[in-house]
């Protein structure tokens, strides 16, 4: 779907969005190639402050690619404006220093470092010591396993570490990529509960394959299809139309108990 539609959809979002104020992130005509493949064909969307926006779509549609290019971990063309400043030419570490925190797909904790060392890498942020207390409150397991090597943690614990590491950052925008991927249903519940606790009032762009999880966490939704934004609006609007959801995501409300919607 053309970028204009997405822009209109984002602009006419309803009363909630206007309360949130100007978008914290504006993405215009994002175009990304990975090797020979043309993944994103001019993606445009906004992310409103203090809300959780889910970035949805079928497998391989370019959700992770979008997050990676927002962080300049992949080369892209187009315009990204974060908190009023264009990010063009800004390298990854400076984008993060300007206030974007990142929880990658597959956790990517430093497996040879201990839990404490993983967190210590993120302790140079202002106010990190106080936030470490909060992180330990939300994820008490991280305190208990402080001296354990991150590589020996379970998938769920690694996810908590990855989230905890990002939460030490005084971020204005949190990019979270598939936090429930590969986790057992009971662990998913735990991670989602923690996420709900941790992301209250935060601005989050969340990639999530599991529609039920996305519905629980997000207020807004952006759906990618064939490398463009196919739909954007509120999460409630998206799931209200079962046929549309099924058309866009391959799953509907009724079938979410299946492979895509396990919780």
């Amino acid at each position, binding site marked *: 779907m053309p970028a204009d539609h997405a822009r209109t959809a984002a602009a006419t979002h309803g009363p909630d969005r206007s309360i949130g104020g100007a978008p914290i992130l504006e993405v215009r005509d994002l175009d990304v190639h990975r090797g020979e493949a043309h993944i994103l064909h001019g993606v445009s969307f906004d992310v409103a402050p203090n809300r959780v926006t889910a970035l949805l779509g079928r497998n391989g549609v370019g959700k992770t690619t979008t997050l990676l290019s927002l*962080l300049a*971990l992949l080369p892209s063309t187009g315009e990204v404006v974060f908190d009023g400043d264009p990010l063009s030419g800004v*390298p*990854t*570490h*400076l984008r*993060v*220093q300007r206030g974007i925190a*990142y929880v*990658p797909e597959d956790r*990517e904790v*430093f*497996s*040879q*470092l201990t839990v404490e*060392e993983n967190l*210590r*890498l*993120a302790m*140079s*942020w202002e106010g990190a010591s106080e936030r470490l207390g909060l992180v330990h409150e939300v994820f008490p397991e991280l305190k208990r396993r402080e001296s354990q090597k991150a590589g020996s943690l379970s998938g769920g614990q690694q996810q908590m570490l990855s989230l905890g*590491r990002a939460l030490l*950052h005084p971020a204005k925008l949190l990019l979270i990529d598939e936090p429930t991927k590969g986790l057992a249903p009971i662990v998913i519940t735990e991670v989602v509960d923690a996420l709900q606790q941790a992301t209250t009032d935060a601005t989050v762009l969340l990639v999530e394959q599991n529609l039920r999880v996305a519905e629980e966490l997000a207020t807004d939704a952006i759906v990618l299809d064939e490398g463009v934004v196919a739909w954007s609006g509120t999460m409630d609007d998206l799931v209200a139309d079962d046929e549309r959801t099924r058309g866009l995501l391959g799953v509907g409300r009724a079938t979410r108990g299946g492979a895509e919607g396990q919780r």
Partner: protein
Amino acid sequence: MSLQVFVLLSVTGLGLAGVYFLIASGLSLIFGLMDVLNLAHGLFFTVGGYATWWVMTRFQWIESLGLRFLVAFLIATVLGLAVGWATERFFVRRFYGDHVTQILITLGISLAGVALVGGWFSYDPQTFPVPEFMRQVAVIAGARIPVSRLLILAISVVLLVGLLAVLRRTRHGLIIRAGVENRQMVQAMGIDVAKSFTLVFAVGGGLAAIGGILGGVFFAGVTPEFGLNMLIFAFIVVVIGGLGSVEGTALSAVIVGLTQQFVNFFAGAGVGDLTVVVLLAVTLLLRPQGLLGEVAR
């Protein structure tokens, strides 16, 4: 085998291991952190050896050989740090991610270094006087061990412990260890990993230069190809130990050093070198990530 021979071969092998460790540890960190195959690393070693030779033979106004050696040690180390820093800053930095160009550039620096040193000081082996105490022998379990070998071993152990302490206890060390594992994620945590690149190159250069000083003492002289010849064994040590692992490099250096000494003694000169290459092949077949290396992500 008598106990004396065993002790002598062990200490000599461990001394050689110390020299290998010093050149290989920087090489391993540079490859682990930056994916740079630094073929110029042998030059850092040569710089250390020649700086020592230069000071020991030209600074005759320092009468005490012990003091002169200390001055040589300091100058050689600083020169190694500087050459390592300059190599990253002026050459390698422009070509991160471009492996072919990196190999060509660092090989070029390496060969140019040999030509420069050879042209300047001649291609003949150069020897230098060492302090009196290094020429003495210590008797351990009946074996007469040159004190220089023990000194090489002691300095290498001190530097290994120091390097591990820096890696484990400082923030720079933490960033380097994390970066060896996943450089992208370190950047995605807002850390400018490029600063660590320069630091690792400089420290690698300094360590290799110290290797060159001790190598000059061990082999009783230096030649322009000195570093290039050592680089081959340093690469073998790095691959067997596991890329990016300082502990692995130390362990591998000990294995390679001892194997070379013992096999050369019992099976004839040269067979030890061949055995080391066989060890490399066996490691690559059975444990491609090296003894203490991580499986590539």
